[in-house]
């Protein structure tokens, strides 16, 4: 495959077994107002030609900073030391001009958000042709041919139409393919992929991972994969580097890391991954003889021409956890909005304990609690945690004075937070602590129904599992019914008694969790379940085969 390398590449060196990329004692220090912060400390790693190396870690582990330092894309406050040798040249020692020739030519970059990686006011052809002509002396017509060829390479159907389009006219998956086409335009030796599938739906993620795997074998490009998703690692990586707090904790072969990790931290990280189990879990079904607490009938919500929800009907029995699964744009958040009364239904009705939510009064609303996806957004930044939790109690004049303070302290304890945190402001808490505070607020009035809209997807892996356990334990103690919304099937499997699967605003399948996850009837549900990666390289390889067969 050396023919794919650009002319002049030191092929002899690569053939001689020397690594393509070698990082020695890399450290990155940020100068901030309050002194220096060591974001990365003494990182050593190697990447061979054609190899996929996954750098995994939670937010703040330094994995992205390490990758960005290779391209000189760190802010000016960063001081980089050490050596990063790519095919015999130290990237840190290059001038701005030399570095520019490396970017996009020897190293290609794939970003997390394909929408923001492309210029929204330029058509795809202009951007792609520009990316080609920066490094190659080609005429416009030749560059256009090359662009078409690249779009075929990334398996985009109808390249001519894609070239004429503006970014907003393409879907997220198509855009990421365009970004990948740009990244491989000059057949780089190294691709840096920073969370390449995090912003994408799980069915699209599976396709993009398949494409990356295919490009790697066709172009013999090495891939430095930055991710927090162990399922993605298991799917794509040959070797794994685990980072924590700016340092490399462990590195090794993907099978070794997953099956016999030597470090405590790696074991914890893998242990906290919420993954689909190999065989059906025993999940109780709640007797639905009782009158349902929530009854949704033929609910439709139309925004302009878009039918966000289309004839949705389901019930939730008292004490039951109903999982609502769907990808972005499936209408699951719209349904949540209609249930909580934030969205007005265009047709159909939502009945809570026999009353229409559309005409809900304060007394009815206090019996529904809501937990949102991003706890940073769900807490008033200018209110203390205690005030935020006390707000529903004050609003409904349930308690006041010292009784109110006691209740807030009790609530904080029930979500396993120190009552002293009640005097802090949201920015002084971690993401997991904030989400616990949000749960305490939602449960302050002892609701009959808890609506949880993706409550763990903004959290780090190690925190997710504990927050889910907390919700389960509280549900067991307090016995509320729960509408649990998620795109993550593994999370749903942990919690839900029953599952509703939504696609394009409609319910495509509904049933007990075990039967939906392990014997799906609908074609879309089957694809959705098959596409979800599992954090085990061997199992994932088998699942990949099954997914391809679909």
């Amino acid at each position, binding site marked *: 495959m050396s023919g794919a390398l650009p002319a002049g590449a030191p092929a002899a060196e690569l053939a001689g077994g020397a690594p393509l990329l070698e990082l020695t004692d890399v450290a990155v220090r940020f100068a901030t107002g309050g002194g220096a912060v060591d974001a990365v400390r003494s990182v050593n790693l190697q990447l061979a030609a054609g190899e996929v190396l996954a750098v995994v870690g939670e937010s703040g582990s330094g994995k992205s900073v390490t990758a960005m330092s290779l391209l000189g894309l760190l802010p000016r406050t960063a001081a980089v030391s050490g050596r990063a040798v790519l095919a015999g040249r130290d990237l840190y020692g290059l001038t701005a001009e030399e570095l520019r020739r490396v970017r996009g030519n020897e190293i290609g970059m794939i970003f997390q958000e394909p929408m923001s990686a492309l210029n929204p006011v330029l058509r795809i052809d202009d951007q792609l042709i520009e990316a080609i002509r920066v490094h190659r002396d080609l005429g416009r017509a030749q560059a256009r041919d090359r662009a078409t060829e690249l779009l075929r390479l990334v398996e985009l159907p109808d390249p001519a139409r894609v070239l004429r389009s503006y970014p907003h006219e393409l879907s997220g998956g198509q855009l990421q393919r365009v970004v990948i086409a740009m990244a491989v335009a000059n057949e780089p030796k190294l691709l840096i992929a920073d969370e390449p599938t995090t912003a994408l739906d799980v069915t699209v993620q599976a396709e993009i991972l398949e494409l990356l795997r295919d490009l790697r074998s066709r172009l013999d490009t090495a891939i430095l994969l930055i991710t927090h998703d162990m399922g993605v690692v298991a799917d794509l990586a040959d070797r794994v580097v685990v980072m924590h707090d700016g340092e490399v904790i462990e590195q090794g072969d993907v099978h070794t890391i997953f099956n016999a990790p030597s470090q405590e931290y790696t074991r914890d990280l893998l242990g906290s991954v919420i993954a689909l189990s190999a065989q059906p879990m025993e999940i109780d079904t709640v007797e639905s003889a009782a009158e349902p607490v929530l009854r949704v009938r033929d609910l439709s919500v139309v925004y302009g021409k878009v039918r966000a929800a289309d004839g949705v009907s389901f019930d939730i029995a008292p004490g039951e956890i109903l999982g609502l699964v769907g990808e972005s744009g499936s209408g699951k958040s719209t349904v949540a909005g209609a249930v909580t009364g*934030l969205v007005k239904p265009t047709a159909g009705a939502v009945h809570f304990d026999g009353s229409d939510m559309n005409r*809900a009064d304060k007394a009815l609303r206090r019996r529904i609690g*809501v937990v949102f996806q991003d706890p940073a957004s769900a807490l008033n930044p200018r209110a203390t945690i205690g005030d935020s939790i006390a707000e529903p109690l004050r609003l409904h004049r349930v308690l006041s004075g010292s009784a109110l303070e006691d209740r807030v302290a009790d609530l904080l304890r029930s979500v396993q937070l120190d009552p002293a945190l009640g005097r802090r402001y949201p920015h002084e808490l971690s993401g997991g602590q904030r989400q616990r505070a949000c749960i305490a607020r939602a449960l302050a009035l002892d609701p009959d129904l808890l609506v949880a809209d993706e409550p763990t997807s903004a959290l780090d892996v190690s925190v997710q599992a504990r927050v889910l356990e907390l919700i389960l334990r509280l549900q067991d103690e307090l016995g509320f019914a729960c509408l649990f919304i998620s795109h993550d099937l593994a999370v749903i499997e942990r919690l839900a008694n029953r599952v509703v699967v939504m696609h394009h605003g409609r319910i495509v399948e509904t049933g007990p969790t075990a039967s939906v996850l392990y014997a799906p009837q609908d074609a879309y549900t089957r694809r959705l379940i098959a596409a979800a990666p599992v954090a085990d390289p061997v199992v994932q390889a088998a699942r990949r085969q099954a997914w391809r067969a679909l």
Partner: protein
Amino acid sequence: MSDPLATTVRRAVWADWWTRLSALTVLLMIGLALAADLLVSLEGQSLRPDTSVLGPTGLPAEGPSADHWFGVEPLTGIDLFALVVHGARTSLLIGLAATVVAVLLGLLIGASAGYLGGWWDRIVGWTTDVIFGFPYLIFLIALSAVTPPSVPKPLLLVIVLGFFGWPRIARVVRAQTLTLTQRKFVAAARVMGAGPWHVFRTELLPNLWAPVIVVSTLSIPSMIGLEAALSFLGVGIQPPTASWGRTISTAIDYVEVDPLYLIFPGAALFLVTLGFNVVGDSVRDAIDPRSAGRI
């Protein structure tokens, strides 16, 4: 744990010697305004005309002295120090009161337009556009000319300046409210059953103070400047109430023979507007990091 906003503002004002000096100037002017009567009686003077200190041509017989710290006014012999410190009282009172009126109107109108939206938002949008494009200086001059003298001029100025000042604040507040409403804590309050007033008071207002503090500290000097301009044109504060603008206007005629007459009230007006502007600017830099560091 103290409120982060108060700490930010305090730090911003005390950040470097330049803003510290400006803040001290503002505080000094506020002190002069508050203690005007006391200071003038310490000096042993008042706002009464006194022709005995004037020469035969009506010009002051002598310059600043132990009796008259800034000298006296030509033709009337009124003590200039008394005019300047009482002028500070008028300027600050009108500047602050007009800003308070503008902020109250701007907050209520801007937040309700941003939160409620719909037809109310459209009406507010049109109204602010009209007021922004309105030739308000000419309107103010005409209005002052036709109002009966029984209406107290300071009150009229406060109401009119406040009325023309709210659209600026309402625009900022509306934009901020629109982004806040996207945040989930507002949705959380609505789900709890909170009405618009509760949402405004507990969710929006604490998050609106930061931009409101910035626009209002920058609005005070422009209000002071407007009052001085109107008084300069003779349609603002009328005698015997002291006003920098009016004193400056008369002093122009004597600038060659008695320059100090112009310099004292002019410097006072300059210092107070500069002080407020510098403090407002550094508070804005502290609260809105996007504007910091730009020179």
